């Protein structure tokens, strides 16, 4: 049951190789991560666990963070590693509200339709 968040802080430093950030896609809390491949031999265990979780269906950054018990910013470093090597694809939240702007009306209408059908 121990996740990265419960481990020694130095462990977080190790799994991210001490990187504050990694080149790769911008990731939001609700970016959807799409896997579909098995972890190649030699894949670090933290990365392999991510690949297992999004092997058969997309998973949001938030859900992966919860399931792996890994803080969001640490998880993002690992996800950028996987995205750079093409092992996962990222579906960014297309209709996210831009700063200082309202969500567009068409988006709101679609959300309303979905909520009414709950």
């Amino acid at each position, binding site marked *: 049951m121990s996740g990265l968040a419960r481990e020694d802080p130095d462990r977080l430093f190790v799994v991210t190789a001490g990187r*504050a950030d990694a080149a790769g896609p911008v990731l939001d809390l609700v*970016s959807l991560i799409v896997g579909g491949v098995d972890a190649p031999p030699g894949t670090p265990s933290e990365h392999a*666990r991510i690949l297992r979780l999004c092997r058969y*269906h*997309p998973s949001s950054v938030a859900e992966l963070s*919860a*399931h792996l018990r890994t*803080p969001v910013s640490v998880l993002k470093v690992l996800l950028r590693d996987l995205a750079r090597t093409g092992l996962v694809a990222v579906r960014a939240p297309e209709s996210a509200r831009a700063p200082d702007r309202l969500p567009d009306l068409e*988006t*709101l209408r679609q959300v309303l339709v979905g909520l009414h059908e709950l």
Partner: protein
Amino acid sequence: MDSTNSDGVPLRATARDAFKIVIVGGFGVGKTTMVGSVSEIRPLSTEEIMTRAGVGIDDPTAVADKNTTTVAFDFGRITLDAERVLYLFGAPGQQRFWFLWDQLFGGSLGAVVLVDVRRLAESFYAIDRLEHHGMPFIVAVNRFDGPRPPLDRVRAALDLQPRVPLIECDARERDSCKTVLIDLVEHLASLHAPETTP
């Protein structure tokens, strides 16, 4: 715990556009109850690291100096249609959390401030911060046993702008929580209309 299937419905393969709505409130006000009432998955919990100064917050290496703390938040999910999915995040209202707001909840459609009328003062700060961040919101009073002051008194006590909707809800009831979300989205749509001068 390595399988998302263990927590119910996996996300559809066609899902490609995700939205966020944030439910902000003090400890014990019913945020996670509300998330659980409408979520298709059992609420999950995750956390983010922040330094005590609230700077360098996207810097996981900061943990190496152990001068950090974490903020936990619960969330759930609602599939809207084949492509769209809505995530509901319960967010603590306390001061240290707001350093993380833009990083975690920038781009959210809007927010619900969940209020316990017995502890109204806990909502002042959250309302002030939401206004500061330019995040549209509504206020929902969670019904608890005990005094139920009229909403116009709650509105006055919170010093809410007339245009901000104030409603009552029962965070334990799915239909009530659904109504809260619908009211928020309808409020967001109404903000597109030019403000009418009284």
